[in-house]
């Protein structure tokens, strides 16, 4: 019987793995560190984990190759990518092409890290429940009961292209459930620029955790859904229609959309 641990953290920088383990154990979670991807694969042979935190830029096997190796081995543990701002485009890629569930831009505070870890653990649980309810599982995306013609960035946010060239942006129901509800939104103002893969809104859940929602499309905000801002439960009740967050003018839709899944 394999021993089950909560977290496996992979980073070639020991300083990072050390602090992540410190934070996790202080919160009562069990965690193991690996300094490179091959080391991590050995850990996975020896034990089971509920969540994997993985850096993208690593020597030998990088984060993407590690994800590919996982899918080859049939490992279904949810993976959260850790990335610098310079590799945000890569992080976006990791969500669609290789099926990581989330990512967290470095540097992060202890709270930001814990929020992402808890949310992803719950997300993993929700996906497992879906699987045990014998729903077909081909990655996180298949779970989300998202309307057709909506483009999704991972399981977190969605974008809908409108006829006049604008786009609507919102948050997915799986994200809302993983975050365990919603208390308030901190939305940006019209005229501001949003960048794909960079947080576009801060969402506060009932326990006070602040969740960053990654923006699915780059563009300039034209309009903010003030109704959703004043009544956050609207987003929870109807996340795909009346609960949209922004109307934006996409600056580079063609190249942005290729990283999103339908």
């Amino acid at each position, binding site marked *: 019987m394999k021993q089950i641990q909560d977290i496996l953290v992979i980073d070639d920088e020991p300083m990072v793995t050390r*602090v992540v383990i410190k934070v996790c154990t202080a919160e009562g979670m069990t965690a193991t560190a690996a300094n490179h991807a091959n080391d991590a694969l050995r850990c996975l042979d020896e034990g089971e984990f509920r969540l994997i935190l993985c850096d993208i830029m690593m020597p030998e096997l990088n984060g993407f190759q590690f994800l590919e190796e996982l899918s080859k081995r049939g490992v279904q543990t949810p993976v959260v990518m850790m990335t610098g701002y310079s590799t945000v485009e890569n992080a976006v890629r990791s969500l669609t092409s290789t099926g990581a569930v989330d990512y967290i831009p*470095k540097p992060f505070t202890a709270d930001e890290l814990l929020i992402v870890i808890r949310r992803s653990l719950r997300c993993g649980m929700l996906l497992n429940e879906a699987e045990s309810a014998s729903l077909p599982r081909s990655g996180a995306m298949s779970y989300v009961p998202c309307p057709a013609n909506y483009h999704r960035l991972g399981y977190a946010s969605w974008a809908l292209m409108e006829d006049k060239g604008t786009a609507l942006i919102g948050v997915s129901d799986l994200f809302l459930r993983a975050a365990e509800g919603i208390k308030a939104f901190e939305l940006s103002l019209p005229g501001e620029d949003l960048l794909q893969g960079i947080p576009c809104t801060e969402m506060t859940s009932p326990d006070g955790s602040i969740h960053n929602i990654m923006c699915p499309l780059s563009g300039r905000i034209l*309009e903010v859904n003030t109704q959703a801002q004043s009544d956050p439960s609207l987003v929870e009740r109807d996340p795909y229609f009346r609960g949209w967050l922004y109307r934006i003018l996409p600056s580079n839709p063609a190249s942005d959309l290729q990283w999103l899944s339908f």
Partner: protein
Amino acid sequence: MLNSKIGLKLTFGVALTILVVIAIFAYFNIQSDNRSLLTEVERAAQQYSDHLKADMGYDMLHNDRKRIQDDVRRIGKQGTIDGIRVFNKMGEVIYSSDSAEIGKMVDIKAATCFRCHLTGRPVKRLQKQEHMRFFRTDPDSPRQLGIINPIYNEPSCWTAACHMHPESQTVLGVLDVTMPLSKVDQNIRNSQVAIIILAVSAIIILSVIIGFLVRWWIDRPVQDLLMATRQVAGGNLGYRVEVKREDELGMLARSFNSMTDNLAEARLQLFQSDKLASMGRLAAGVAHEINNPLTAVLTNSSYLLKRSQGQSELQEDLQVIVSETIRCREIVKSLLDFARQTVPKKRKADINEIIHRAATVVENQLSMGQVELVMDLDEKLAKVTVDANQIQQVFINLMVNASDAIGEDGGTINISSRAISLGPAGTLQIKRALCRKRHDLVDRKIQIDGKPAISMRYKKNKETGLIHLNPMYGSNKHKLNGMTDFDKEVELMCPDCSASLMADGEFCPDCGSRIYAFEVPLKGLVQGCLKEGCGWHRWEQVDSSWNDEYVEVKVTDNGCGIPQEQLPKLFEPFSTTKGQKGTGLGLAVTWGIVDNHNGTISVESKLCAGTTFTIRIPVGP
């Protein structure tokens, strides 16, 4: 003399051609000389032989054999004749200048006879030239000319008293005169030698002349160009070929120079975009390198902050560490955003429409801040060639700035657009100015109105120092550092190489003072007069081709204004008037966009009264 292969090849080629032409010419000349000399000799010999025959005819009619033989011997002794023989039809020598020959038979196959008797039966009459034969008695002896003159039967012959010849005979005998050709051959040889000497000296003289011409006209300019290409290949893009002539090679030198100029300009632009690109790479690299240590600091400090509840002093310090680390994170992020700037994609666009679009974007923000937006747009504006997205960003930046300046009490932003016409003076910024040795006079350390100035060194008697000219063409707001008296004694020169910047032999058309001149790459010479109160200037290439159509947009707010001392640095990166709120990149980006569109942006501001930004963009092609 020729150290380049092309000169050598060309000279050899031309010399060879001359050699062939002169050789052919000499050959035909010698041939024709020979022919005419021989013809003359033949004609003389024929005449001589005819005379002799006529002379002997009388004696023959009288059958005075002794007298004939005496005549033959006498004549035969002359230097011009080698021998005379007369033989009868049977081939028997009857008379001869050589008495020993008399009575001998001549072989029918001998040269004298075979002309007529070659085919076995005698030819009735021979052509004149067939009477001649050239021969040598032995291979080493001089050539001789033999001429046979048949003596035909005539009525006087068969009616003569001696009844020697019956009427039925056609030819009675043959007069054979042999003449020496040694003199003629000597003449021919002399003339051949003369022609050959002439030809050889012509070839030598022409080759030398052509060699020199090739050296002067081709070799030297080609060497100069070769030298220039080596210099340019070695990276010296300031090298110029001296243009000395107006022929094709001169034009080649000229286009080489302008190609090098273009190359230098392109390299400069490449440097600029390369700088941006490397800034992007640098930022990305910095972000990656700095993010790991920042993660350790931020996560640890925020973790400690979480655990240190109840120890307020410790918490305060940790809070500082956390918030400052988060600030570092934001700086890295804005650096990356700044490095993501793109090149403008210019198209014809309506500037009013761009203003309207920008206004819709900020509308909500403005109405929340109780800011009223008043537009005063000239609806008949010509379309301008711009990157609409970038220009829209400019207007959004300015409107957001204006709304920030207005603050929470509300106010008005006024946007107006109009068509204006602008001359190059005061509009065009000189971004590069070159001395004769191609040093850039634009000095980024000295700025006038926030723009890098043009620096020159002056020398007056023994006094020397630097002056800085305003880079805005036509502006007389210079930094002359107290130097005002620009009389004839003053020399202006390049601060780097001391090459003179005074225009040779040209004087200010307004005041007659000496003028300065420098080159703007690809845009010709800029000239100007520094005499106090004159300010004459000329930039021929720009003055003549200037399109003066501009669109001017003013964004005015009645907000808090900008302190005077902050104005000069307003458009520099990381200068912000908003304190913690701004990144200090907004106006730098705005300035960069306007500059990329060859436009200008200026600001006027009064504390507590408001600020006006004026943007002028050329309508363009």
